[in-house]
């Protein structure tokens, strides 16, 4: 029941389940309209509630499955392989509880992320050091050859790592995003999550593509530290009669600050409306996406083509070789 084959099948069941949930969410408004004539909206709360537990189990599988054996695994063998990583992940979660968050969903998420990362790194480390000992290779050479010999497996592990980094970003933006909106006059400021955004000025000028640009200049402070100016703007395209909102953005590994010039009221010196978002950890989503591509390249890199010789040809080749060797020995 805990063999790798069984876990692979469970993994497939989870993927199909996520597909079923999303497909049903997408087609339900049509089905509802068809049978009842009533239009409904199926928005983000449905998808988040329905897929979050499935993704959590999928993450747990990413932690457990690499340690299971083909054909046979029991709770005992798996437990023996995973306990060190599980204890370390638990310690990390406790540290996060005291230093970062007490949100139970976030803590479960961070525990799973830590578990999968530790298990994957442990798998890389164990196999590399085994190679260092057995083949007497330098650690880097051993690592390179290890990945090269089983690219699909280790490419898959790189993808696991990337998934966990993405999970950090998704947990951050879903559970810790904060936002505020307010209208301020010049030299006044809005504050959010340790950031202070001061409205300096606004200007309107024609843009290079025939659009009318309304651009505000705001100074961003963290506490009393001046971090720099940002330029949120709204571009109005008169031909299409459409607005395009381009946020002022500051991005770090800890969080992203987005400032949007909201068109609730026309921006002017006596007042402009800003919407400010602080999106914690969201950069890890993009870092994870880049590592994900890297993992795919490792896994899908084509194998060196094996020279194929048909059976009949092979026998002729062998006969030729034998003749050659006989001739050589005769010459000796």
């Amino acid at each position, binding site marked *: *029941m805990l063999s790798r084959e069984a876990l692979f099948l*469970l993994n497939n069941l989870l993927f199909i*389940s996520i597909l079923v949930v999303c497909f049903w969410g997408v087609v*339900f408004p049509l089905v509802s309209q068809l049978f009842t004539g009533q*239009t409904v*909206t*199926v928005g983000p709360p449905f998808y988040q509630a329905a897929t979050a537990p499935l993704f959590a189990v999928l993450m747990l599988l990413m932690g457990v499955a690499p340690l299971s054996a083909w054909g046979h695994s029991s709770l005992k063998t798996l437990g023996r392989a995973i306990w060190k990583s599980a204890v370390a992940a638990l310690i990390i979660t406790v540290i996060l509880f005291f230093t970062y968050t007490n949100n139970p969903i976030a803590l479960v998420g961070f525990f799973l992320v830590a578990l999968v990362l530790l298990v994957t790194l442990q798998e890389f480390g164990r196999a590399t050091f085994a190679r260092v000992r057995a083949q007497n290779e330098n650690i880097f050479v051993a690592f390179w050859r290890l990945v090269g010999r089983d690219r699909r497996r280790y490419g898959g592990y790189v993808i696991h790592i990337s998934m966990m980094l993405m999970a950090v970003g998704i947990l951050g933006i879903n559970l810790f995003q904060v936002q505020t909106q307010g*209208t301020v006059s010049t030299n006044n400021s809005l504050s959010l999550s340790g950031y202070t955004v001061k409205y300096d000025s606004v200007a309107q000028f024609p843009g290079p593509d025939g659009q009318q640009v309304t651009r505000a200049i705001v100074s961003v402070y963290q506490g009393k530290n001046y971090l720099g100016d940002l330029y949120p703007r709204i571009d109005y395209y008169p031909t299409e009669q459409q607005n395009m909102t381009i946020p002022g953005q500051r991005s770090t590994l800890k969080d992203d600050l987005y400032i949007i010039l909201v068109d609730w009221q026309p921006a002017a010196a006596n007042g402009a409306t800003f919407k400010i978002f602080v999106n914690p950890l969201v950069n890890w989503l993009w870092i994870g996406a880049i590592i994900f591509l890297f993992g795919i390249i490792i896994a899908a890199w084509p194998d060196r083509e094996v020279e194929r010789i048909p059976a009949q040809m092979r026998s002729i080749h062998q006969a030729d070789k034998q003749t050659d060797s006989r001739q050589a020995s005769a010459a000796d």
Partner: protein
Amino acid sequence: MKKLFWLSILALIIASLFTSIVLAQQPVPTPSDDEVNHIAHQLYCPVCANTPLDVCPTDACRQWRDLIRQQLAQGWTEDQIKQYFVQQYGVRVLAEPPQTGFNWLIYILPPVIILAGAFVLFRALRMWTKPVPVSAAPGSNQDALKDEYVARLEEELKKRY
């Protein structure tokens, strides 16, 4: 003197009247953009499909946000405001279908399919891992076949080496 007394009483009454009028007209604190957005984010624009009301840039949505602000200023609760929009524009303004009648299907069907899949998988795994019973008759037959095969192998080996 008496006249002055009555005049001052009258002045006091008029002053107190004005004070109460002024107090009664003191504006209820205007709800902030964040309070409006908190509710608008949970409602979907009845005109543009799948756009939350807090970010929709159309004039209609701007008016609806102003309406939410007015309703909040009048002391309406979040549920009352949502209910008002549902009555006016239908359940499509809610982010999720209400849990009534036909809409139950959206909540029931995915778990049922997932549990059915899990059950099928569990049965299949049980079947594959169940040890195959070994009966006496085919076993002896197999042994005989095996013996015959081994004997032939031995014979071939003897012939060649």
